[in-house]
C-alpha cells in the first residue's frame, strides 16, 4: 500500500470526522479501507467516535436556573447594588491590608535601625583606644 494513498485516506477520514466528506471521496476511501487494514481500522474507530459525539444531545437545564438567573440580575441591577461577580470590593480590602502591612514593616525597620545605632554607638565609645597621655 503506498504511503501517499494512506495519507489521502487519512485526510479523507478527518473530513469524514468533520462531516464534510463528499460521496466520491467516500467511495475512494471505502475501497482503500477494504484493502488496507490500518486505514480500515482507523476508519472503523472514527465512525464509532463520530456516532458517539453526534449522539450528545442537549440536556435539560435545571428547572430553577431561569428563575435564579433573573433573581441575580434583579439584585445586581438594583440601585447602588454591586454585581455579584464584581471583585472591586475584594480588591479594595486587599489594597488596604497591603498598605497597612507595608507601613507596619517600614516602622519596624526604622525602630530596629534606631536601636542598633544606639547600641553600637555605646559599644564604639567603650572600645575606643585610649589616647596616649
Amino acid at each position, binding site marked *: 500500500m503506498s504511503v501517499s494513498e*494512506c495519507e489521502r*485516506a*487519512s485526510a479523507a*477520514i*478527518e473530513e*469524514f*470526522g*468533520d462531516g464534510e*466528506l463528499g460521496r466520491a471521496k*467516500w467511495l475512494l476511501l*471505502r475501497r482503500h*479501507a*477494504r484493502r488496507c*487494514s*490500518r*486505514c*480500515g*481500522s*482507523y*476508519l*472503523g*474507530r*472514527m*465512525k*464509532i*467516535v*463520530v*456516532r*458517539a*459525539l*453526534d*449522539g*450528545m*444531545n*442537549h*440536556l*435539560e*437545564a*435545571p428547572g430553577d*436556573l*431561569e428563575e*435564579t*438567573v*433573573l433573581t*441575580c*440580575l434583579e439584585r*445586581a441591577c438594583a440601585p447602588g447594588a454591586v*454585581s*455579584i*461577580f464584581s471583585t472591586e470590593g475584594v480588591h479594595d480590602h486587599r489594597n488596604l491590608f497591603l498598605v497597612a502591612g507595608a507601613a507596619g514593616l517600614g516602622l519596624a525597620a526604622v525602630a530596629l535601625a534606631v536601636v542598633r545605632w544606639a547600641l553600637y554607638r555605646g559599644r564604639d565609645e567603650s572600645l575606643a583606644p585610649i589616647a596616649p597621655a
Partner: protein
Amino acid sequence: MATTRLSRDSREDARLVKGCREGDARAYELLVRKYQDPVFSIAYRMVGDREDARDLAQETFVRALEGIDTFNIRMPFRAWLFRICTNAVIDHLRKYGKVRDIPVEMAVAAGAGPFDGGECAVVIEMPGSDTEIPENISVANETAVTVREALMDLPEHYRAVVVLHHMEGMSYSEISRVMEVPRNTAKTWGHRARALLCDTLEGVV
C-alpha cells in the same frame, strides 16, 4: 473582528438584546429560556458535573446580561454567549486544577493518524447506513460511553471544539469566533481531539 450576515434566528436575538438594553425584563427572560439548555449542556459536557454545570450556566447568563451593552449587535448572540460560557468553564477548570494543557506528545500522537493503530479489520458502510440490530446497538452504547468518558480527559480546548462542533452543530468558522482563534486552529484542535478519542478505542473495538 469581521461581521457576518445575520440569520433570522440571530436577528430575533438582536431584537431581544435591544429589548434587554432598554430594560425590558421579558426580553431577558426569553433569552435565558431560549439558551438555558445549550449553555447548561456545553458546561456539563465540559466539566462532567451537574452542579458545577448549573453554577457555570448561571454565571454565564449573569455575565452576559450584565455586559449586554458591550455586545456587538451585528454579531451572532449565540457565538458571544457560548464564548462567555466556554471562558467561564475554562476559568473554572483552571481554578480547580482540572485543566489540561496540550502536551507535545499528544499532538504528535494525534498527528500520526492511523499509522500507529491496530490491525483489526472492520466492515465499512456508507455513513449512517449501519444496521441497527440489538447487539450492535448495545456495543454502540458501551463504546459511546467509553468515548464520552475519554472526552473528559482531553485538553479543555479540544473538548470545547468537539462539543461545539458535534453537539451544537457549529462550523469551524463559528467555533473560531467563539474561541477567538483562527479557523484552522479550531479545525486542527477538532482533528486532534477525534484522533485521540480514536486512540482510546484501540483494543476496545
